[in-house]
């Protein structure tokens, strides 16, 4: 879905106004700390994956998404995940849920969750191939940003096979080949744009082969 989160190239959002690096705290409010920790801790129970978690934050009215602060969007997301997954109706003890203690949580945080998978087919594209990012106008989760849809670029890296977010957000843990694709600024924004390149990580199902001739 191309909701309020799909921001690449949007205009009218104002200056960046960065806080000086040496003065910026990790969290600005106590509730932000709590939302961050609650999101990670409940995520460790394995009732949803990272793409479902991202999609839960995206599934809001775009005006709300943009109006909310960052951790407010996290709060909206974790509330949704807890209710939709039914986890909030459960009691850890009577449902026999194993709740990570600090050492178990430490292990989860330091090992992470790699997304590389074994490929069940060879890659369709090679480095140097010209490809077009297709139109992915779906209501469900996708990582094909709308600003580059329909544009043509060149494959610069093949990263192997990785969990495909569009299916993972539906609870299907399947892999697809992943590539970094380079787009010229003028292809994305027209000839009056600054001269630069944008590199986007895109999965094979998003991409179409282009005839070189």
């Amino acid at each position, binding site marked *: 879905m191309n909701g309020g989160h799909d921001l690449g190239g949007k205009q009218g959002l104002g200056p960046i106004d960065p806080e000086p690096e040496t003065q910026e705290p990790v969290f600005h409010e106590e509730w932000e700390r709590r939302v*961050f*920790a609650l999101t990670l801790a*409940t995520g460790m129970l394995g009732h949803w994956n990272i793409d479902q978690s*991202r999609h839960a934050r995206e599934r809001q009215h775009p005006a709300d998404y943009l109006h909310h602060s960052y951790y407010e969007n996290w709060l909206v997301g974790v509330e949704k995940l807890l209710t939709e997954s039914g986890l909030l109706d459960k009691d850890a003890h009577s449902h026999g849920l194993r709740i990570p203690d600090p050492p178990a949580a430490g292990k989860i945080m330091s090992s992470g969750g790699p997304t590389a998978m074994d490929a069940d087919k060879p890659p369709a594209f090679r480095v140097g191939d010209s490809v077009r990012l297709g139109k992915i106008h779906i209501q469900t989760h996708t990582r094909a940003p709308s600003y580059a849809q329909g544009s043509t670029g060149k494959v610069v890296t093949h990263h192997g096979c990785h969990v495909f977010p569009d299916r993972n957000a539906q609870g299907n843990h399947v892999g697809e080949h992943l590539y970094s694709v380079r787009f010229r600024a003028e292809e994305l924004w027209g000839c009056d744009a600054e001269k*630069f390149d944008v590199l986007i990580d895109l999965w094979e199902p998003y991409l179409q082969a282009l005839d070189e001739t």
Partner: protein
Amino acid sequence: MPHDHSLDHDQDHTDLPSDLELRVKALESLLLEKGLVNPDTLNTIIDTYENRVGPRNGVHVVAKAWTDPKFKAALMNDPTAAVASLGYTGRQGEHLNVVENTAQVHNLVVCTLCSCYPWTVLGLPPVWYKSAPYRSRAVSEPRAVLQEFGTELDAGVCVRVWDSTSEMRYLVLPLRPQGTEHWSEQQLQQLVSRNSMIGVEPARSPEAVENTSS
């Protein structure tokens, strides 16, 4: 859950908790009551990302790459393994890519769709990195964005913007400042800012560091 937006964003200096604070407290209480979170685990998570994992990890990586050619080669060849060899592993750093700035190429990292960021080497992202203005503009007018950070690039420098749409996480290896040929790894660490590893600024100049320490 309906709520009044105006209350959430009020910067009023009263002692009353905001709707938002109450909502978070209510959620935490409910989860604790049902035994769905361990209170000590919450503190461990906060301590990890507030005090243990942060840009100093990336500073170590960059200063070592500037001074140790073998490490630099390993870092460019297999970034995830090279960074793990320094002890930095975990969430949001499972698949690292290092993009090197040179006299001809300047790299800049963004996540237009959310806030993807290499936690293992940089910690949690700053507010501006997660903000709508940065996420919208980094891919459409990067030089204008760099100027807002006080960064001016020569017209001939090729700008590459990396939109972190997958679980690949990007770390910029900044250009080593001139006049630091005889500096040790330890000394060079002072020149590596978090912002230089996102690509919005160059590394600090030796003069800038000397001025602040004198």
